[in-house]
């Protein structure tokens, strides 16, 4: 395994809020096109790690690399331009915009559709051409998520499961190398969850994506992820092969708890 195959790497990543160490000494190594899971009980620091990778929080200790490039110190939009996109635990779509418009926002910085503000005001034909190309691309992306027919509806009027899918579609539109999914299957019924697993695998293959995901649905995790990091109270409990992790007594203890002895 050469270094260039590692898409995301964190070294001794940690953050404290006041005196509270929310995350401590987390070392991740996610390889190209891997589906990597981040699991652990509520409050284990999973979303905090996402927030550090995406530049919402600045880590107190440690480093983060995307294909060898350091991410810490960059703004959120720069990190997105470098190739990281994410979804949110509590869905954060642009609610009063149509489904396709949400995806169009994601295509904002795609070089293929680059058309500066002045250009779009002065050179209408080029603007129209670029707009049409963007809409075509947006429709293609929506088609993957089976949302093409919903494209003119307002995002807030979609059922929950479709909102989750649209959030992934919007993130995908920014053309990321690394996609972070924060509880993508939360609130989905078993059928939707199964569909989502197929979609995640499909976009991984079609777009050459690397996916890091947080999920509580263990069926989803074991069916999808090659490798896991299990967190508890901000520290790494176990790391490695999915089956091995999920059968680890420490993990079972952290999730289900044990009876007090003695």
């Amino acid at each position: 395994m050469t270094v260039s195959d590692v898409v995301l790497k964190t070294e001794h990543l940690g953050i404290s809020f006041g005196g509270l160490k929310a995350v401590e000494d987390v070392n991740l190594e996610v390889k190209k096109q891997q589906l990597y899971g981040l699991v652990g009980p509520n409050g284990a620091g999973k979303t905090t790690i996402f927030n550090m990778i995406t530049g919402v929080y600045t880590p107190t200790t440690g480093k983060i690399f995307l294909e060898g490039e350091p991410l810490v110190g960059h703004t959120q939009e720069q990190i997105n331009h470098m190739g990281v996109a994410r979804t949110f635990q509590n869905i954060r779509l642009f609610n009063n915009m149509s489904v396709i418009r949400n995806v169009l926002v994601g295509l904002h910085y795609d070089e293929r559709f680059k058309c500066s503000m002045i250009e779009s005001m002065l050179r209408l034909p080029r603007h129209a051409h670029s707009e049409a190309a963007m809409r075509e691309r947006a429709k293609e992306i929506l088609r993957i998520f089976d949302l093409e027919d919903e494209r003119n509806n307002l995002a807030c009027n979609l059922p929950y499961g479709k909102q989750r899918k649209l959030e992934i579609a919007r993130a995908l539109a920014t053309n990321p190398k690394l996609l972070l999914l924060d509880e993508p299957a939360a609130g989905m019924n078993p059928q939707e969850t199964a569909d989502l697993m197929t979609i995640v695998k499909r976009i991984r293959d079609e777009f050459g994506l690397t996916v890091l995901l947080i999920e509580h649905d263990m069926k989803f995790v074991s069916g999808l992820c090659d490798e896991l990091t299990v967190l508890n109270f901000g520290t790494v409990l176990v790391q490695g092969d999915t089956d091995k992790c999920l059968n680890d007594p420490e993990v079972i203890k952290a999730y289900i708890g044990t009876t007090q002895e003695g």
Partner: protein
Amino acid sequence: MSILFDGLSLGAIYALIALGYTMVYGIAKMLNFAHGDIIMVGAYSVFVVMQRAKSPTDAFLNVACGLLLSLFICTLFGVVMEKLAYKPLRGVTPIAVLITAIGVSYLLQSLAQIFFGAKPHSVSLPTLGTVTVAGAKVSLSSIVTLVVGAVIMALLTWFVSKTTTGRAMQAVSEDRGAAQMMGINVNKIISVTFAIGSALAAFAGLFYLLQIPTAEPTLGSMPGIKAFTAAVIGGIGSIPGAMIGGVLLGVIEKICLSIPVIAPYTTAVEFSLLIIILLVRPIGILGKKRREKV
């Protein structure tokens, strides 16, 4: 008939200013109370050009130069004001930003006093005369204001709904954090918003001079407050709302002024309308309910 035209054209002026308030509120989530004073800056820019202009034969060329300078200066002021006064306050309590905005407003007025004195200056704009529309005499300046105002608003609507920057503006207004995560440079979008709002104010400044051809340091206060009222009536944050609110307020003002008994109470009528609308529909005519996030 002429009252209607005058009302619509005054309404177009209010709408242009209201758009600046509403866009900045929607995108930067702040009330820029110095926005009215940008009109004053624009008016003085026109004044400077008209005063320097030596050849009265080219009156319209002079006005065009005045407008260009005004557009440039206003946009510059808007962007610089945001960078220096508001950007450092991003993320602090809204009340601090509000007070800062009031401070910027007084700063601009005082600067105008220092450079031009407190005395009103009359601005000699070419008179446009009147035309007869459907049997009624209507001043040509009203028609120009109305037409240009309508064109600008149509362009703005197109811009916001059909361009990448427009979409980014809407995205920032919906959810700043998510917009950033989609690669949108929020600071740039806020700058663009201030630039557009101030450019609209430059147009409003020129049109305002066509109605009342005097430039004074406090020129922007009253139209500023009225346009803010219009923005709130229409639903602050909503672009079509600002247009509707502005036109509504302009027409009501001119109708009130044409009835001798009510004329002295015109301003009272306008602000009462605001209070009534806020009582019946606190979010304004086209305002959106803020849904609490879970």
